[in-house]
């Protein structure tokens, strides 16, 4: 395996939060490597540091110490605005509560990352394509309130896909859905992973969902407890 095939390389990631007088060690030396196109689940009880790890992998936050490479680029030392560009180009987020703009149509929601990227050419067509890819080609001009939970999550997935990111980071993507639409969303994520070879990282409590992945990273007290391979 060459370095080029690794989408994510993290070395000794440490994150310390200052909560008033107390220092909280959310991550204590986490190292991991994730290959291009891989499907990985990050699991762990609450307080294990999986949210912190996800934030760092998603370039929303910087580690206190340690190095984090995304697509071979050292991103742990970048400025806020540089991180924003990385998030825009390389990371697609799927949140538990969808996080769509409630006032805007599905199309506008999906277009939004392209707007921030400053890409005006074929923006609409690309957004339509992405919505078609998640099976919402007939719901372009619906607002989130007019869509079911499953459909809203599909819009969010289309938004995550639109910039052809290196990784899709899904934080409990099925947490707010009934089991049927939850399954559908999982199938969609897996299908997109096959079609686009996008690295998929799932943060979840749900062992059933984790079972669908190729690898599970167990976190416990800010450390990697096991990297179970299937």
């Amino acid at each position: 395996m060459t370095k080029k095939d690794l989408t994510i390389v993290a070395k000794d990631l440490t994150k310390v939060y200052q909560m008033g007088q107390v220092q909280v060690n959310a991550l204590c030396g986490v190292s991991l490597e994730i290959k291009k196109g891989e499907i990985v689940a990050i699991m762990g009880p609450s307080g294990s540091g999986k949210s912190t790890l996800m934030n760092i992998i998603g370039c929303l936050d910087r580690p206190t110490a340690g190095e984090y490479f995304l697509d071979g680029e050292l991103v742990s030392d970048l400025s806020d605005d540089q991180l924003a560009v990385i998030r825009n180009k390389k990371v697609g987020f799927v949140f538990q509560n969808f996080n769509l703009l409630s006032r805007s149509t599905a199309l506008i929601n999906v277009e939004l990352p392209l707007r921030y990227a400053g890409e005006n050419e074929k923006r609409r067509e690309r957004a339509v394509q992405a919505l078609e890819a998640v099976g919402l080609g007939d719901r372009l001009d619906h607002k989130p309130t007019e869509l079911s939970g499953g459909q809203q999550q599909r819009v969010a997935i289309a938004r995550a896909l639109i910039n052809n990111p290196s990784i899709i980071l899904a934080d409990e993507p099925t947490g707010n859905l009934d089991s049927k639409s939850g399954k559908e969303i999982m199938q969609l994520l897996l299908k997109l992973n096959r079609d686009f070879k996008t690295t998929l990282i799932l943060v979840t409590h749900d062992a059933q969902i984790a079972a669908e992945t190729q690898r599970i990273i167990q976190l416990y007290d800010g450390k990697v407890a096991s990297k179970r391979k299937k």
Partner: protein
Amino acid sequence: MNLLQIISEALESLNANKLRAALTILGIVIGVAAVIAMLAVGTGAQDTILGSISGIGTNLLFVFQGNLQQDVRNEKPLTMNDINALSDVYQAPHIQMIAPIVYDTLAASYGGESATPELFGVTPEFEIVSNYFLIEGSFITEDQVNGLASVALLGPEVADKLFDRRTLITGETIRIDGQPFRVIGVLEPKGGGSFGSQDNVILVPITTARARLLDRERDHVDIAYVQAISAETVPIAQEEIVQILRNRHRTEIGLDDFTIFTQEDFLSLAGTITGVLTIFLGGIAAISLLVGGIGIMNIMLVSVTERTREIGLRKAIGARKRDILIQFLTESALLSMFGGFIGIIFGWVISFAVGKIASASGTPFTPAVKLDAIILATIFSSAVGLFFGIYPANRAANLEPVEALRYE
């Protein structure tokens, strides 16, 4: 994002809270309308006052006894001899006419009614120099001056007070300072002027005023109204008066013991006063615009707090600080721009209404909404919107994405 998208997004989010946006805009509307209306009223007042001063005639000069700037010892009074010298066409070719005046405030009564007008002792020249017209009767004649006649001309306000009418008064006898005077005419209204109301006056022959009413010496003159032959020759006429009076009062060296005011002096003085008044009114109105700006800041801060998650999401999908900053600044700028626009219209309507009310109550007065007032209000309200928008926008831009996404 390009400008159009930024504006349409800002409009969308303002639209989501219509009532709130409307109330915020209202604050700016009131501020801008107040500024526009106040400036218009001030400018209108200025135009009216300057107009009525010009109405006396721009070729007028006023000569007083004494030096208004500095104390002069042994100041000589203005006398009829001075007046006669000034009337000499050879010495003062640019003076057309001169009207000597003595004046004071005295009580006048008729029946049970009384008034305290300005009493002017005048000569026949006064009619022309001061531009008075008569509703009825005739002006004071040379004979009446020479004969110390007890006759009086009433200003319209005095006629209103004493007789409650302006006509059919000629021939009546009124009492001034207890002495009987026969009314020989009523003046037409003129409005305000350089020395207070020109309508609340009684004119009597100058000789009668000196001898019976005002206790002045025989040849004494309080003020001389001097009419130059044209508006352009006022400075030359002024120079002639200065030369003649210095010569006669023997003050060629040292300070003048008399003062000359020209109509220009009054105009510029009145212009300064009304200008200060306008700025003062506008300044008070600007305070309400400032309050409107604080309203914008308040609402934008609430909006930032409410939309913390949205800001977090936008940052997560690639919005930079600048993008968020611009988004919120655009919203506050749009609020103040709408407010400014509506405020200009509203302010114009208010000043129009003020003009209507003023002319309905008998004061001819037209508030003028000038272009510079509109530009000033627009710039000022946009500046207020930006200034008070910066803090909330900056707060939004500096939110940590992790914190913002977690915000409930």
